[in-house]
């Protein structure tokens, strides 16, 4: 046991090179797994957060809705408020909740426009269930519910069109573009709209929230298919087209499974490559150390003991390298999750603590297994070698 550590410490170059390999291995396994898990969780949370089975929007606004929900491009479109009633009466519809979209030109300091969504607190079933932290009071005028990406805590103020609003509640992180939105009630929205018109955005003046809505979120009764209800609405209500949310996220699901497969392949490739390199490295090292092992035999070490020494060294290299690799991976994956999300352009939500620990465990395990696995052949060779012949070779 002591000999194993002494061997590792007294050969820093060799140990470092092998460590580096197993660090690399654990890092890529951990990083890859975390990315796939995050994407999967992002998709799940997107599905959950859309909340509605069907979303009804004005004709031709379907693509714009996807832009808003999936690409994070703020926008707006409107239809007659009467449609809400018509939709509610469609067969198979259990609940409806209208939303009104408004895009800010700039939020406070920043050049990025923010999507402002007006909702009806009384009928809403897609925003309020996700409030993470709030006053515990009903939403007042000039108060907003902020998505997780809005850099303001509850009680702080935000400015839109020079109108100050208070953050009354914050939503849970979804890892999707919904994190960038701000939700208000109808009155606050009217105030903001007024402020926008005052600032010269006269085009918005005709979009009276009392007469218009942007979208209607629809919950489908049990026993009805969202697909049927959506087509029913599209066919029967003029100028309205309805989208089955399942279909909307299916595009994302497809690219996600593509990325999952790629990452999986990459992990396997890295693993195989590391295994091969490590196996070669171990067998070279063993060749170089033949004499050392022969001496151990001379003083009475069994064949098993030699094999155990080789396997033990490999095991500790795997264990230590795995731990370092996961640590380095964690430093990349957790603090920079926002950057990864932005680069991937897909819903991305860091997995729960448990799932992350699972991924970390799997990564350490993969490198711990890699050590003995790759040195097994060398260990067998060491234990089989003919001591007498090696000692002769030495001279």
């Amino acid at each position, binding site marked *: 046991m002591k000999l194993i550590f002494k061997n590792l410490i007294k050969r820093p170059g060799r140990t470092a090179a092998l460590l580096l390999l197993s660090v690399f291995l654990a890092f890529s396994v951990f990083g890859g797994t975390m990315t796939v898990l995050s994407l999967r969780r992002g998709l799940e949370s997107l599905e959950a957060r859309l909340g509605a089975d069907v979303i009804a929007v004005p004709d031709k606004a379907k693509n714009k809705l996807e832009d808003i929900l999936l690409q994070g491009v703020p926008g707006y479109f409107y239809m007659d408020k009467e449609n809400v009633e018509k939709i509610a009466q469609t067969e198979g519809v259990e609940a409806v909740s209208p939303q009104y979209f408004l895009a800010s030109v700039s939020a406070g300091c920043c050049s990025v426009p923010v999507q402002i969504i007006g909702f009806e607190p009384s009928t809403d079933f897609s925003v309020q269930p996700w409030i993470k932290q709030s006053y515990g009071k009903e939403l007042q005028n000039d108060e907003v519910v902020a998505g997780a990406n809005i850099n303001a805590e509850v009680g702080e103020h935000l400015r839109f069109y020079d109108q100050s609003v208070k953050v009354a509640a914050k939503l849970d992180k979804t890892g999707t573009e919904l994190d960038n939105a701000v939700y208000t009630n109808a009155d606050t929205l009217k105030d903001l709209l007024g402020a926008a018109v005052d600032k010269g955005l006269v085009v918005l003046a005709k979009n009276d929230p009392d007469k218009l809505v942007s979208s209607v979120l629809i919950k489908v009764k049990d026993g009805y298919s969202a697909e049927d209800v959506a087509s029913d609405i599209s066919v029967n209500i003029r100028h309205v087209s309805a989208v089955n949310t399942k279909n909307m996220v299916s595009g994302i699901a497809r690219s996600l499974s593509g990325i999952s497969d790629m990452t999986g392949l990459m992990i396997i490739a890295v693993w195989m490559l590391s295994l091969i390199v490590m196996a070669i490295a171990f067998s070279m090292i063993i060749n170089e150390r033949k004499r050392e092992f022969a*001496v151990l035999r001379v*003083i009475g070490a069994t064949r098993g003991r030699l094999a155990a020494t080789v396997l033990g060294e490999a095991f500790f290299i795997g264990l230590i390298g795995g731990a370092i690799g996961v640590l380095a991976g964690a430093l990349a994956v957790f603090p920079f999750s926002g950057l990864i999300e932005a680069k991937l352009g897909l819903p991305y939500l860091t997995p729960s603590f448990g799932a992350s620990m699972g991924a970390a465990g799997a990564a350490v395990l993969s490198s711990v297994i890699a050590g003995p696995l790759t040195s097994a052949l060398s260990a067998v060779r060491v234990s089989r070698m003919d001591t*007498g012949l090696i000692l002769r070779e030495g001279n």
Partner: protein
Amino acid sequence: MILKAEGMSRRFFRKNGGANFFYAVQKTDFTLEAGKLCVIMGRSGSGKSTFLNMLAGLLEPSEGRVMLDNTDIYAMDDKSLSRMRNKNIGVIPQGQTALSSLTVLENVKLPYLLYNKPSEKIDKYAAELIETVGISTLGNSYPNELSGGENRRLAIARALLMQPGILLADEPTGDLDDENTKKVLELLKNAAQNGTAVLLVTHENDAANFADSLYKMDGGVLSQIK
């Protein structure tokens, strides 16, 4: 303790020919007795190292047996043979044989620590041994800081640590100057006088003066001179 070779031989296959082999050691009977220093002289390549390795249980003979006090050592399994060698046979192999990641003292104690927990007794004995072989000041040095002679003496101390009944030394004086050669030979002679059966294999003539019995190895054939 008595180590006996009965009809022992070893042949090797030549690398380039299938059935083409040669005898490194011809069929030989040989006895190594307690308290005696036995010297085998021979040129390099004469088969003397092969002979020694077979006696040490490190190289299985092609024919014949090696008996240690009536036990056929090659009939034992690896575990018991290793254990037996650890306890009863001290081997001083050719060349530099210390483990480079351990200090001199750790190297000397290694045979004990393979099968036992560290103890103060063994620390003391190991310290005495390196004193005896004259490298006591180097206890905490590493083997690569030692000269050839010092390394050889380390190997002797290591071989003596378990107070084995048999001591087998393969060219222990190779590459050493006269003074060191004399020291090493005296150490081996002392061991024999203390009751150990010592076999010394060498190509140097100086050793003959210390021998209780003297053999000559030539082309794998062993013949007694004294």
